[in-house]
């Protein structure tokens, strides 16, 4: 009996959300009186996988099959299911990423497991029940879900738990094979295209986000957003009307029908705060709103606010960040 943690890697590195998931998995294992093993997917280095010991992982399984570098739903599902059977895992933990959620749902059928996605807290195991708190109603509420059956799968929302770093602890890295065949790669991608990300920071994983709305008046003014984002090491984002008129690409749209984010800091510039936009950002730890309209509804959801013109305020903020050094 163990806890199996699915760790996503890219370019040799373990993704930030997977470091969070590794910590979460180690804590679940401690709750259940067992250890946490990881199965790594994507392109990883042995040295980086060994460092998962810092998050409390004791063992990491890694299949060096080169076709696993990119996400292949069937192959990843078989790989993780094989690892789960080998380790007799009763609880499987993934990131609530596009990969984690897509694989988790297939795994739940294959392994006859109950599944909670979008988990925001550690599970509770009182009264013989296994209860997971998850985000629902697009961030406007939570639901406590009872997972039944012998096997459980939890997909953990990004930024809902902090990754631990206990220096010096290492995990044992073991090679692993799921005996994958050509048929398992039938839905392999024919091409992978990476988008331009401001400062190389991925919006879904970002700790800080600077976001612009129609108050920015046009795409030519986005330099002000990018300057502040660069100074803060933040990702850039936008509201739906902005992506609808192609001022910014769709992959930057946050909101109910866009990307849901939960960074430590969300700075909304020239966004009035429609309820659909709030639904995508209201689990951010600190929300800052800059808007010249003091009646903008976003101020009601904000922790800090500036009533003022974004064209005047943003350069001042960027300068102040640079002064901090």
């Amino acid at each position, binding site marked *: 009996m163990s806890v199996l943690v699915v760790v996503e890697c*890219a370019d040799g590195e373990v993704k930030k959300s997977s470091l969070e998931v590794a910590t979460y998995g180690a804590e679940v294992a401690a709750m259940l009186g067992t250890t946490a093993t990881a199965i790594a997917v994507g392109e990883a280095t042995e040295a980086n996988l060994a460092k998962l010991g810092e998050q409390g992982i004791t063992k990491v399984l890694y299949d060096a099959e080169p076709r696993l570098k990119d996400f292949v*739903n069937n192959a990843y*599902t078989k790989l993780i299911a094989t690892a789960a059977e080998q380790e007799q895992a009763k609880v499987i933990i993934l990131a609530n*990423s*596009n*990969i984690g*959620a*897509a*694989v988790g*749902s*297939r795994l*739940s*059928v294959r392994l006859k*497991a*109950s*599944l909670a*996605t979008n988990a925001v807290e550690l599970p509770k195991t009182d009264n013989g029940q296994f209860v997971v708190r998850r*985000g*629902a*109603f*697009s961030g*406007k*509420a*939570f*639901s*406590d*879900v*009872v*997972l039944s*059956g012998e096997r459980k799968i939890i997909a953990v929302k990004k930024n809902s738990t902090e990754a631990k770093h206990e220096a010096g602890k290492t995990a044992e890295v073991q090679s692993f094979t799921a005996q994958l065949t050509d048929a398992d790669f*039938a*839905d392999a*991608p*024919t*091409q*992978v295209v*990476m*988008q331009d*990300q401001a400062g190389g920071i991925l919006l879904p994983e970002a700790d800080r986000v600077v976001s612009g709305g129609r108050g920015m008046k046009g795409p030519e003014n986005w330099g002000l957003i990018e300057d502040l984002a660069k100074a803060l090491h933040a990702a850039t984002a936008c509201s739906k009307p902005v992506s609808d008129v192609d001022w910014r690409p*769709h992959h930057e749209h946050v909101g*109910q*029908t866009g990307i849901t984010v939960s960074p430590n800091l969300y700075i909304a510039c020239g966004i009035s705060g429609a*309820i*659909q936009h709030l*639904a995508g950002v209201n689990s951010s*730890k*600190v929300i800052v*709103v800059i808007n010249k309209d003091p009646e903008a509804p976003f101020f*009601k959801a*904000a*922790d*800090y606010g*500036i009533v*003022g013109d974004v064209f005047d*305020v943003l350069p*001042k*903020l960027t300068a*102040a*960040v640079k*002064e901090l050094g």
Partner: protein
Amino acid sequence: MKFLVCISNVPDTTTKITFTPDNKEFNKAGVQFVINPWDEYALTRAIELKEAAGSGTVTVLNVGEADTEPNIRKALAIGADDAIRVNAAPQDAFFVAEQIAAVAKEGGYDVILMGKESIDYNGFQVHGMVGEMLGIPTVAPAMKLDMNGNTATLEREIEGGKEIVTVTTPFVASCQQPMCEPRIPNMRGIMTARTKPLKVVPPVGEPARTQVAEYALPPKKQGVKLIPAENAGELIKLLRNEAKVI
């Protein structure tokens, strides 16, 4: 080509979320229900592909009780050919997936489309479960879908980019923007929808694997701290020293 498009009946996106006094159920009083916005992408794209091919059918499937029929009729008005309602309150993703898989198996559909998630439960689970139950590929979430005979080319969103995936029918895809511009029904569509077939079938399968014990609302915010615009730099000091987020 036979398309099966699965739609959920969800609270309107502007709904203020509240629960019954025991926090066990969503409070539906006074709430307008709509087709799940993500599912509208699936529905419109299926209709577009059928129209482009000049043949085929689009069947709408909903797992829900009789009160979902206005939105099923709306989907028919948008351009679907017929509809199936599995007569049961959706219990959890597994239960819903079982119903979809059973209907898909029975009807021999080539392409099964749905939104990437519903805006109420936010599970992002049903498409993968259906694919696994039927033993066919799942592409989720898909931003683009083109068909050439029985071969589909899809763009699948990954963190920081996209994958181009080619699959042959049958397959499942969950849809999201910018796949298409969702359509709204016109008067002719509304009139013809009234006479399109809507079949009601009983639920099948095993019981749900998860149950909601309780709902909760996020803690209320303490209120905004306003910083004068002329002293905007002060905000950065507060974010570092007080909020400790930079």
